[in-house]
């Protein structure tokens, strides 16, 4: 393993500043009204018009949770490769990179919340629906390995369409690879807190998203394993309206709480405080 020095001193290749203030319009998928990004940052991406939860880009999520200027990014130079020559994958990757400015579907690093240090990964649904391939698997695994070594809690903010099929079986194996790192982190007695956001499905649900000590879910988020359409086609069953929502999860015992965005920061700070890392 690479020798590392100090909490924030791991040598990384910087790729510009973690947060930009670029202004652009974001459309609410519910009421179709467009808002300036700065307006949505102020409202925590809750639509000022209709109150719907708008999906939050990974970096903006971190900005909403982390103490000011406390976030340091890890492994920003990791990106996906089309090693199977899978039809259309190369184009999809280029499009996702251009549209988001990201190199992969997850942002990882360390931050402070309420003064307390915490490792964090946040997935970005704009990047090929945050599907989990080798790049995502490697970044999450490294983050857990780092957190175990530095004795840090981990916050994971999930959203994902599942394993990235364009990377074939190698993407399925990322589920076991990340889980191995989560297991070591857990056995070291460290906290792993998951915040499920819309949508968290498939292989993500069948691995790291469901391996937390504490599982929080955003109101109304879609969280499930099999797709609704697949279930309807396979079983012909009529599914309840709230099927596979956060509320459905809470009702069936698979989440600890529904976490509204207004409470996100303070709740995470409280959980970190309860799990004992000193404020710095």
């Amino acid at each position, binding site marked *: 393993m690479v020798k590392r020095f100090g909490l924030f001193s791991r040598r990384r*290749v910087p790729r510009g500043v973690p947060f930009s203030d670029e202004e652009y319009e974001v459309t609410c998928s519910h009421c179709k009204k467009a808002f300036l990004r700065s307006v949505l940052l102020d409202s925590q991406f809750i639509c000022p018009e209709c109150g719907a939860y708008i999906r939050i880009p990974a970096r903006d999520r971190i900005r909403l949770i982390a103490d000011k200027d406390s976030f340091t990014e890890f*492994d920003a*130079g*990791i*990106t*996906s*490769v089309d*090693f*199977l020559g899978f*039809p*259309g994958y190369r184009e999809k990757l280029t499009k996702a990179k251009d549209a988001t400015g990201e190199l992969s579907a997850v942002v990882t690093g360390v931050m402070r919340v309420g003064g307390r240090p915490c490792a964090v990964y946040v997935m970005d649904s704009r990047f090929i629906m945050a599907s989990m391939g*080798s*790049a995502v*698997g*490697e970044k999450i*695994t490294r983050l857990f390995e780092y957190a175990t070594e530095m004795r840090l809690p981990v916050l994971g903010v999930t959203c994902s369409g*599942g*394993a990235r*099929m364009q*990377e*074939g*079986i*190698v993407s*399925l*194996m*990322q*589920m*076991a*690879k990340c*889980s*191995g*790192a*989560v*297991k*070591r982190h*857990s*056995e070291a007695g460290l906290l792993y807190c998951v915040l499920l956001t819309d949508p968290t499905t*498939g292989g993500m*649900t*069948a*691995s*790291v*998203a*469901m*391996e937390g000590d504490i599982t929080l879910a955003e109101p109304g988020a879609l969280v*499930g*394993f*099999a*797709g609704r359409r*697949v*279930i309807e086609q*396979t*079983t012909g*069953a009529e*599914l309840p309206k709230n*099927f596979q929502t956060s509320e*459905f999860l809470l009702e*069936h*015992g*698979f989440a600890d709480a529904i976490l509204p965005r207004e409470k996100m920061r303070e709740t995470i700070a409280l959980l970190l405080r309860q799990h004992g890392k000193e404020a710095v």
Partner: protein
Amino acid sequence: MTAYDRLKIVRSSDRPQGHDFVEALFTDRFELCGDRRFAEDPAIMAGIGYLGDQVVTYIAIDKGKDLNDRMKKHFGCPLPEGYRKALRLMKQAEKFHRPVVCLVDTLGAYPGAEGEERGQGQAIAENILEMMGLRTPVLSVVIGEGGSGGALALASADRVYMLENAVYSVITPDGCASILWKDASRVQDAAACLHITAQDMVDFGVAEDIFREDFDRFDKMCGEIKTRLLCDLHALCAMSVPRLLEERYNRFRRIGIFEENGSIRQ
């Protein structure tokens, strides 16, 4: 032979199923049932038996004998209680220091409302998580279809073997075709693109070895499989637990192909 040809072979109902392999591989068996949480899932056939001279816990996915049996077993698609039953028996094997042998043959975990209500994703996740820390050797043989997370939940193991025509895939080629091309009939193309054959698994480091198929001499074939499994088990049982866990961790840790700061890592 194309990937699709192999897919058709493993899906044919006259191929030996999980229960056939259980009967041929393990002697003096005692079958165990239930997850102690909710129910018994007959799609998972498990118990204690002898692999040669070695007592093991065997856990097999069985697609069923006749139509009635198949329907009861959801054609080999386990429910959460099936995965929790498997985990219960793996933990039991850990307690009694006996190795675990899993036989995998599933299209995938059962996609149904009851599965979602009872946490299908969580059940699979917990199996993978716990298997990564299980303090006893685990071998997995994909005897037919290795369908996605539903297969990985019994294959986060120290060694994984493929039968000659067995396939292992992140998503069913049928599902891939319908998502990607909105055309389920392009399953042939999807099977090729996904790289699902036994040789692909060895090439990607997902499986250690391939077992030759000879169903006309099924017992002889299973005898050879048994010899190989026993040989590997003996080596794994001789390891200290920390080393066993370290090697299992690294077995998965090194899988992944990505680019880092301009150079390809694999």
